[in-house]
């Protein structure tokens, strides 16, 4: 009898403590996003080689290769350089972008055939990147401030415990009404993202494959696959030769110097 009373007392204590820390689904979603962001910060700079394989409805494939250099920026979105290697006609084209937590990104493009750097002012982050199933907004730096969040449920994904979080783009010109992110419970890294178009229909699913730990603390994938359910197309991005926090040339990240990047 006394045992039971004791148990009850403990239970109620526990209950009240959870109540104190109780959070809404929105808060929990926000907290998970912040956690994911925190875990992935401090990489300073990164270079990686990227191969994009585009596949159309008929299953025909087409390959594009680019190199990426990125620079982490405290308090704002990251800076990034993309150098295009193939197709041959666009070889040497360089894109520099400064992403921002709010508002439009700054973007410059060096066109070797024109031998000029052009500043591209566009609020369109939602179009396809190089004709692929990835939109620019899927690939640019994922700042916490770009979405509002809501925790949906705990679940299992391919045998791993996950938190499913819904995020709604703050950005007006986004192509999406919402996204669902399957976040690995232990590592707080995304395993899958579902994208919903403006009418709320399932549009694309992104799969993250082959996570490896770099520099003992950063999880990086080997492959990203984006499947477009409406068009029947898909794109796989393969990453090779990650180099994190090894130092990049800071001067590369300036529009005036784009023509010198090879």
């Amino acid at each position, binding site marked *: 009898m006394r045992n039971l009373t004791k148990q009850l007392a403990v239970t109620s204590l526990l209950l009240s403590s959870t109540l104190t820390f109780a959070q809404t689904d929105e808060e929990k979603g926000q907290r998970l996003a912040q956690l994911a962001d925190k875990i992935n910060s401090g990489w300073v700079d990164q270079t990686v080689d990227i191969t994009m394989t585009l596949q159309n409805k008929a299953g025909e494939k087409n390959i594009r290769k680019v190199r990426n250099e990125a620079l982490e920026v405290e308090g704002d979105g990251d800076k990034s350089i993309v150098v295009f290697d193939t*197709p041959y006609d666009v070889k040497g084209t360089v894109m520099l972008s400064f992403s921002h937590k709010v508002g439009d990104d700054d973007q410059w493009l060096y*066109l070797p*055939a024109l031998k000029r750097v052009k500043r591209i002012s566009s609020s*369109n982050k939602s179009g396809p990147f190089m004709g692929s199933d990835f939109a620019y907004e899927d690939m640019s730096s994922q700042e916490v401030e770009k979405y509002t969040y809501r925790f949906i449920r705990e679940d299992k994904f391919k045998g791993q415990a996950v938190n499913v979080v819904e995020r709604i783009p703050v950005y007006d010109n986004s192509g999406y009404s919402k996204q669902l992110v399957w976040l690995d419970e232990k590592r707080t890294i995304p395993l899958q993202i579902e994208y919903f*178009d403006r009418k709320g229909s399932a549009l694309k699913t992104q799969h993250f494959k082959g996570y490896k730990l770099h520099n003992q603390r950063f999880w990086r994938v080997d492959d990203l696959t984006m499947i477009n359910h409406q068009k029947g197309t898909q794109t796989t991005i393969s990453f090779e030769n990650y180099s994190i926090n090894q130092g990049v040339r800071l001067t590369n990240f300036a529009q005036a110097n784009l023509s010198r990047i090879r």
Partner: protein
Amino acid sequence: MNTENQTVSQSSKMKNFVGLLIRFRYLVTLIVIAICIATSLGQSRVGFSSDYRYYFGSPSPVIAAMDELESDYALSDSIYIAISPKSGGSVFNKAVLSAVIHATEEAWKIPHATRVDSLSNYQNTVANGDDLTVAHLFKSESELFSSNIDYIRQVALSEPMLENRIVSQNGEHTGVNVVLTLPGKSPMETSESVTAIRELAKLLESQYPVEVRLSGVHMLNHAFAEIGMQDIVNIMPVMYMVMLVILFVLFRSVFQVLMTVAIVHLSTITTMGIVGWLGIPLTAPSSIAPTIILTLAVADSVHIIMSFVIAKRRGASNAEAIKESMSVNFLPILLTSLTTIIGFVALNFADAPPYHDLGNITAIGVFIAFILSVTLLPCLLYILPNWIKVKENDTKFSDKLWAQLSLFIERKYKTVIIVFSLLTIAFAIPTENLKLDDRWVEYFSQKTQFRNDADFVQKNVTGLYSIEFNIQSLGPQGISRAEYLNTLDDFAKYYRGFDNVYNVSAITDTMKRLNKNLHGDDPEFYRIPEDKALAAQYLLLYEMSLPYGLDLTNQVNLDKSSSKIVITMKDVSTNELREAAAKGEAWLQTNAPEYMQAIGSGATVIFAHQSEVNIQGMVTGTLLSLIMICIVVFISMRNIKYGLISVLPNVLPAVFAFGAWTLLKGQAGMEVSIVVSATLGVIVDNCVHFMNKYLRGKEVYNLAPAEAIKYAYQNVGNALLFTSITLIAGYTVLTMSSFSLNSSLGLMSALTVVAALLVINILLPSIILFVDRAEQRVADERLANTPLAS
């Protein structure tokens, strides 16, 4: 005589069969009705197809080209929301442009919408030194102040991509083009989108001073399915009413009318049940099958009941009357069902599967009507009461009429033949001028909303029909080559020179614009870039700055080895559309390098080719069915002479009907290809019944030709008259359809049956008398030589 013996043995077999039927009448009635009702449950599975691809027939280069277009590029079939100011005038004012913003935003939410193009989301590119801005032409109402509206007008009316596609040349109408990508998983997909678009249209009209009209290939598509459904709902009840009235006049007996209705109704629902079980989707053409079955099925019952009544009047018992009716009618009914079935099965020679369905469904219906008429009907005749009185003499008005007619024919058969010969020539001459051509929009009557909207949009804003070319280059990235781009640009210019072309949309205009933009908006540079790498880099830059859904995948393929050029036509006929496509193909052959050769395709072009292929197929089909029907008639008559006689009345009515049609309308479309098949069997019916009775009169009752003609008139005249009237009425009811293919088919078939009625009742007996005139002379002499006393 051999034939005599066979007839006797056949009729004794028939008597045994009818005896069995009468003995087990309740069981037979129960089983037959139970089977019919069980089968008819399949009706709930009958669905309407709104996929225009279902109309595509056998593989052809145009269809292959369309398949390629569909796999290489984002789809382009759309719904077009045309927006015009309510009070007329320019669309360039705040209220109308606000409606455009609203429509554009909401259009993205339409089910299955994957791309939305409008004035508002037109990606305007502006250069300012080395800055390039890519942005919506306008995005919010706050941008709609007067100086900016002037700018919007200036951009909108000078951009070749928009002209007569998104905005009319005079700036008085604009449109939002909503591309749908249907997953193809449910037949309801089109109607989901259409319902949502219609709601949006209503909303826009209630909130802004605008008039909204809906057009586009998907609306056309939906209208086809919608009209098929309406036809069933609107026409079937009228058809039943008309049938009831005619039957009542004929029988003047509630039970006999009910019996006929029961047979006809069971035939129809059983057939539609089978359609459901077989999973044949209904379409606008096949939706008239139930009405046709209803019409055709009446004939069998009328013949059996009429012979029954005639026998009863002579004082026969019920069982005897049924036995007599069945032995007189079984063979002709079997024969006519067979010929009707052959006629309809011949529709399988058409290229479009919906016509195969129409033919096959009707053939099934005719078969079932035959089975029911020789099983269920005799039972019902026995079970249900009748009050037919014995009548000795020809007292009925119609009998006198037939007697007079036979007297007239006997005297004037030569004159009749001459008159009909002249008439044939008179009607055959104009058929030469019958133009085979059609316009889809005109398939729909002016009573339909779709027709009104589509007509308006075609007249004022943009076209519904388009030709699409998939133009290859020399390999991956090849579309950036100057030779390719320059040739493509010349090709676009060639089509822009056509009077009946609204818009030509090609990647070259984007190229030229980008070249200008990236040279600081210098108009000098509004031309194709000479350097291949430069062109490729422009595209890369441009693609990267386009928003969601407005990418270039509808124009450029995956590895940039080919691009699509779309020519939007004004209101053209199928012939004009085919011609325009052929001209483009010829232009490419003379002016473009080998690798750029292409075939003009697209949904509407395929349809245009199809009506031609359909007509060709049906000519073959009709000839074949004619031959088969003649063979059947020959076999059944076992007499070459009478078989040959029967051929003529089968062909003439079609000549008369086509002649009359040419004089009335001058132009016909796909419907003409099926009218002969739809009526041939029916006409043969009448002919066979008449010949059969004539021969029976001669062989069984040993009558002289003129007497045998009179016998045929008296025994089958009323039945033929009434079945013809039923058919004429039935086909006339079809003219109520808002779908011109169905209403024209109805009118033409009705004309054909009218002609057939005259030919069979007047010309056929005259020809018979002419052919048998020697026999008649012998009989006349014998009569003259016979002493009056005996």
